[in-house]
């Protein structure tokens, strides 16, 4: 069991976050228990990835290996991908279809519900050896997650204390999933990015609307997204989820030019794309948003940039390493031209994405430079200190403070008089 954690928060509103929290292995160990295996709903996969009975896919919740299956009766199950016997991975492939899942080491056998159903030589051979007669297959199986399916997005929780999924997602969480999943989806493929940084730096990044148009200069240079567009940030009541959003064509070149004038390293109109197919937006959502990035605590992002659609899952690997697992999708009724368009726009997102590649570098240079710090803190004051509120603009870091407030609550490390 990890020991009790003591954090000296400089302030009670999370406008200062000690760098130590990105580096301390004991913090990481406690997070795996209290955040990822705590009372939260973790994103597992899309239902569309498991269309047939017998389909399975491996995933990760925190650093726990998990397998998600569709049983013969069509129900979806998730359990720890670790044999009840000696702890070997049961499933070794990333995906497949099987009638039952068998550990290779001693051939212990599981059904698609994740129940242990067979042990070779359980009764011994010719009356000799074998397992004790009272060994109970039913209680020996791997740890299960409770699974909930919301409009084709699969979530899982290890905790019996987790609130119902719809309540957990809150009004905008459910609304945004319904928006993205408003008709059957087709998975176009995956990407993986391994970043040498603490996973929370990415959780912050996804809530950091301030950096988007500054670090990702492509947004501004080519007018994909600028802070001058109408948009803002929304959070759920507990400030654990967040959404950065913007509405297409709601600023002018003149407004943007004035706003970004004199900002070092940012330039508008310096250049134009020779082929602007990447910037084309085919309106497909009634709300008019061309950029929507709802983040669901603790491990999920849904993202729309124009017509590219994806989920991202944060997979912590170690205190200083995590994977970004991205699933790019379109809709089943997309014609060939629309699929081609979505794939061209996939140039914007992912490890090589014009508006996403920088995040890997930004996180690694924080991890490198803050490693020796035992007392110093990061500063989160853009958008103000104190209470956590939704904003009709995006020059803010408030959602990052929201993340830390819920993280602290789960971890049991809130400062005295903490805001929530």
């Amino acid at each position, binding site marked *: 069991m990890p020991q009790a954690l003591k954090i000296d928060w400089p302030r009670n509103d999370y406008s200062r976050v000690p760098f130590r929290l990105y580096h301390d292995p004991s913090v990481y160990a406690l997070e795996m228990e209290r955040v990822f295996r705590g009372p939260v709903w973790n994103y597992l996969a899309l239902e569309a990835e498991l269309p047939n009975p017998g389909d399975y896919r491996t995933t990760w919740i925190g650093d726990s290996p998990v397998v998600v299956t569709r049983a013969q009766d069509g129900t979806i199950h998730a359990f720890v991908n670790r044999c009840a016997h000696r702890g070997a991975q049961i499933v070794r492939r990333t995906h497949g279809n099987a009638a039952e899942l068998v550990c290779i080491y001693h051939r212990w056998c599981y059904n698609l519900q994740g129940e242990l159903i067979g042990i070779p030589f359980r009764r011994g051979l010719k009356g000799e050896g074998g397992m004790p007669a009272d060994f109970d297959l039913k209680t020996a199986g791997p740890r299960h997650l409770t699974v909930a399916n919301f409009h084709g997005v699969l979530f899982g929780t290890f905790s019996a204390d987790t609130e119902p999924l719809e309540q957990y997602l809150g009004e905008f969480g459910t609304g945004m999933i319904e928006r993205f999943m408003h008709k059957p989806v087709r998975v176009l*493929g995956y990407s993986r990015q391994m970043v040498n940084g603490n996973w929370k730096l990415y959780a912050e990044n996804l809530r950091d609307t301030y950096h988007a148009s500054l670090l990702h*200069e492509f947004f501004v240079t080519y007018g994909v997204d600028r802070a001058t567009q109408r948009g803002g940030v929304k959070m759920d009541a507990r400030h654990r989820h967040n959404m950065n959003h913007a509405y297409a064509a709601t600023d002018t070149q003149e407004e943007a030019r004035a706003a970004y004038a004199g900002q070092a390293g940012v330039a508008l109109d310096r250049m134009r794309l020779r082929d602007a197919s990447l910037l084309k937006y085919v309106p497909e959502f009634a709300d008019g948003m061309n950029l929507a990035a709802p983040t669901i605590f603790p491990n999920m992002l849904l993202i729309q940039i124009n017509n590219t659609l994806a989920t991202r899952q944060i997979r912590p690997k170690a205190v200083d390493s995590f994977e970004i697992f991205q699933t790019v999708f379109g809709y089943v009724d997309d014609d060939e031209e629309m699929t081609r368009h979505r794939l061209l726009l996939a*140039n914007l997102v992912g*490890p*090589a994405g014009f508006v996403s590649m920088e995040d890997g570098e930004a996180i690694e240079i924080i991890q490198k430079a803050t490693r020796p710090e035992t007392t110093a803190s990061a500063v989160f004051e853009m958008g103000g200190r104190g209470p956590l509120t939704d904003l009709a603009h995006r020059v803010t870091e408030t959602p990052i403070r929201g993340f830390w407030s819920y993280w602290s609550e789960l971890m049991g490390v809130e400062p005295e008089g903490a805001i929530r």
Partner: protein
Amino acid sequence: MSAPGVPREVRDAIADLLAEYALRLDEDRLEEWIDLFDADCSYKVVTRENVEQGLPNILIWCANKDMIRDRVDSYRNVNEYNLHWDRHVIGAPRIRAGDSGAWQVEASYSLFQTDLEGVSRLFSVGRYQASVLVTDGLARLRELVAVADTGSIPTLLATPV
């Protein structure tokens, strides 16, 4: 020993093309790397994980030469990425006659990255599948698809594979 039907001058031209490909990328001559492509061309980086599942997702897809130029311009002027040197090691190509006068070329690649303090890492390993035009002893890329075994991209992918 050449495969049957592959003239010696074609094999030589393709070997030269691949050598130039590696060298121009490794010397950060990205604009000259673009010159190795035909006017009508495409460049794509995909992962073996997707290919083996029949999934079309891309990491990079430049569907024409203008898009390749846009990528390079963006690296030069817009994007931020890990500062590094590249080193490509390209294996011996397998060459087959393709359709419409092009040669189908397959070759393994290894791509190492070295940071500015001299620390090297294996960044990507995989296979090039190229369609190559050879005229008057000069080879040009009509299509190059890099299928990366290394689907887990370390840090990020910016400069071309």
